[in-house]
């Protein structure tokens, strides 16, 4: 009996080692304990997709099938229209839009890429997250892609590797602006404010009339950096400050930046009761049910809010600076890149080229209802058209997404955490600035 159990033990150990070795070969990528299962399934999925695309490309001499990965499961219809438009120009290139669930996309894509598969055209997360893939050598450098010169350098930053080479075509902007309830504003005879003081006066009037001025809550950190990213530039001086801070002429402990945080704290009287316990859903509810007059929020919420209350009469205005300058905050929401392992790079690059045309830009604003990265594109929907125009003319970058979303933990999350502590009375604006600077110092050299 002893001998048998010994043999068994050896067999199990051996079996385990073999399994471990196999696993190690084809998936050097999983997370850690617990992610083994997802690695296995993702790996097999990528193999099948890789096979299908290469098989179909070899069967027909000219006909090419491309797969296109994305996290936008909501946009299947829109991309079908975009692909149809592309096929007007290139009838022999068939493109299949195959999105993965938003929260799973990164993990699935990473495992696919590390096993040599993945879609031909990759929807690239902006900035640091996309840069990781470029730096790992998974993407085709777009050194001479025609049409890329249309984009500004700030826009291209979203898809630039740490070697300074562009790897993706940015497609849409996300933007934050102040939404307001037109009906409430009309009832109270309020105008869209054009200076910071007028903004405060507007908030004061709303409050006196029993309306919550700003639909805001500090329970979820990402909303804090988002709000600071929108209102902050008015105080620290927008793109000028960004330029100075990235070149080392100033830092986050400067008066201007501390003041931008202090101004958020000064807005507390205009926030809802118990705002420290309110999150995204609560904020949206307050605005949609017309209990709040203004809402600092991203363009992606327009569709959600309209869906919840179709009668909501809302519009948006940019943040007014103390000197009357106006800005909205934008950042690139995503780019498209070509998989370095793709057997059909030429065809995939054709599609990317199409993505730099105004035809594509027009499809984007009308189908995806988001501001296009291509300048001068006009949308049908008045609100989208307005935001697109703002994005073209008066935008300032979302500093902590575009420039300071690195480090571990990221400087952006340090800002979020510290702002949360500030709203709970545990930190002063100066201490917030100090924490942010400390975090930035760990990885950033001007």
């Amino acid at each position, binding site marked *: 009996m002893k001998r048998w159990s010994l043999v068994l033990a050896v067999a199990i150990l051996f079996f385990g080692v073999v*399994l471990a070795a196999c696993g190690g070969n084809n998936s050097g990528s999983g997370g*850690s304990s617990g992610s083994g299962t997802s690695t296995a399934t993702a790996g097999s999925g990528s193999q099948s997709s890789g096979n299908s695309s290469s098989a179909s490309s070899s069967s027909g001499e000219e006909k090419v099938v491309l797969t296109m990965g994305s996290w936008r499961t909501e946009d299947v219809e829109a991309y079908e229209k975009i692909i149809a438009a592309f096929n007007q120009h290139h009838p022999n290139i068939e493109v299949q839009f195959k999105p993965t669930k938003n929260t799973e996309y990164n993990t699935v894509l990473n495992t696919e890429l*590390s096993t040599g598969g993945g879609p031909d055209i990759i929807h690239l997360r902006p900035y640091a997250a996309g840069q990781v893939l470029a730096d790992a050598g998974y993407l085709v450098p777009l050194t001479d892609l025609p049409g890329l010169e249309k984009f500004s350098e700030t826009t291209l930053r979203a898809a630039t590797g740490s070697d300074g080479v562009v790897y993706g075509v940015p497609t849409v902007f996300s933007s934050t602006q102040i939404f307001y309830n037109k009906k409430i504003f009309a009832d109270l005879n309020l105008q869209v404010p054009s200076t910071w003081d007028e903004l405060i006066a507007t908030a004061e009037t709303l409050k006196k009339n029993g309306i919550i001025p700003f639909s805001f809550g500090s329970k979820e*950190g990402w909303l804090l950096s988002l709000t600071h990213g929108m209102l902050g530039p008015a105080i620290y001086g927008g793109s000028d400050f960004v330029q100075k801070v990235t070149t080392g002429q100033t830092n986050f402990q400067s008066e201007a930046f501390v003041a931008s945080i202090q101004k958020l704290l000064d807005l507390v009287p205009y926030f809802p009761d118990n705002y420290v*316990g309110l999150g995204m859903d609560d904020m949206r509810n307050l605005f949609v049910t017309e209990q709040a007059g203004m809402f600092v929020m991203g363009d992606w919420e327009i569709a959600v809010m309209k869906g919840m209350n179709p009668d909501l009469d809302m519009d948006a205005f940019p943040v007014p600076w103390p000197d009357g300058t106006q800005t909205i905050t934008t950042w690139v929401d995503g780019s498209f890149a070509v998989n370095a392992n793709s057997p059909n790079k030429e065809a995939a690059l054709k599609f990317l080229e199409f993505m730099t045309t105004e035809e594509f830009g027009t499809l984007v604003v009308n189908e995806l209802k988001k501001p296009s990265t291509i300048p001068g594109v006009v949308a049908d929907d008045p609100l989208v058209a307005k935001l697109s125009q703002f994005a073209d003319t008066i935008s300032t970058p979302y500093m902590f997404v575009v420039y300071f979303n690195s480090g571990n933990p990221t400087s952006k999350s340090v800002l979020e955490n510290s702002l949360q502590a500030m709203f*709970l009375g545990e930190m002063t604006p100066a201490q917030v600035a100090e924490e942010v600077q400390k975090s930035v110092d760990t990885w950033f050299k001007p």
Partner: protein
Amino acid sequence: MNKQTSARRWRFGLIHLFPLPALAIYTLFIVYPILAAFTYSFYDWQGFKRGSWVGLDNFVDLFTREPFNRLFWNALGNNVYYFVLEMVVQNVLAFILAYIVYTRIKGAGFLKAAYFVPRLLSVIVVGFLFKLILNPNNGALNTLLKKVGLASWAKPWLGDPDTALTAIILVNCWFGMGFALLLFLAGLQSISREVIEAARIDGAVGFRLIRTVIMPMMMQSIIIVTVYTFIHAFEAFELVYAMEGSQGEPVNSTDTLAIFFYRVAFGGSGGADSTAVGLGSALAIVMFFIIATMSALFLYLTRNREVQQ
């Protein structure tokens, strides 16, 4: 004779082969990931790409580098608090209720089922439900407090660092009590009625009966519930995630080791911006050792506490 022996041996050996399929699955899904996490923790990672061998650097980082060291001890403290509060509230209440059900009061069967019902809900549903109940401005709890004139007690429960974790743990107690109750009830029912009768005749009544007769005789259930609660508290993730997300908000007050691990290894809400698989694996290994050692120690220390009937 010889032939018979070898046939018997063969059959005996064959029996040992039957667990192999189960063992293979166990190895693939439990043993391999644990071993993999071990190896991952010794490498430097760029995103999901494995870099060079760095030895114990990830562990050193975890315990010495700001803010990881601070966050680690903070999360560990929260886990300990999670365990203590669950023991005191959930298990004491479960024991009392189990005893009440055991005494066969009217409707005991209904009560048993009723106490267990929360357990049948999905954790995500429970989290969502209590997020609504605890909503500071239109939640049921604060509305009730205002109605009965205790408006000053109303708080943003989940937004205040002083109350957020406690609120979550109490929800967890409500959720987990039914299971502990069933285990306690099974322990109580395994004690023969004669023993209790005899103790009663000898003059043991009320709390004395519970303390000197019933509790020692159901030590097995108590140990199981305690170890189960311990493991559960140190792996606390789902409910915290459902109610406060992956950032341990507000200001790390609801950060548990598992949430901290998830955030470090897979990045937070912003996707893969800040993945640190090596550091995350190191943290997972430390968690594994804490839970394994403490559970083993606890079982060892309590091995002789059970009284044989």
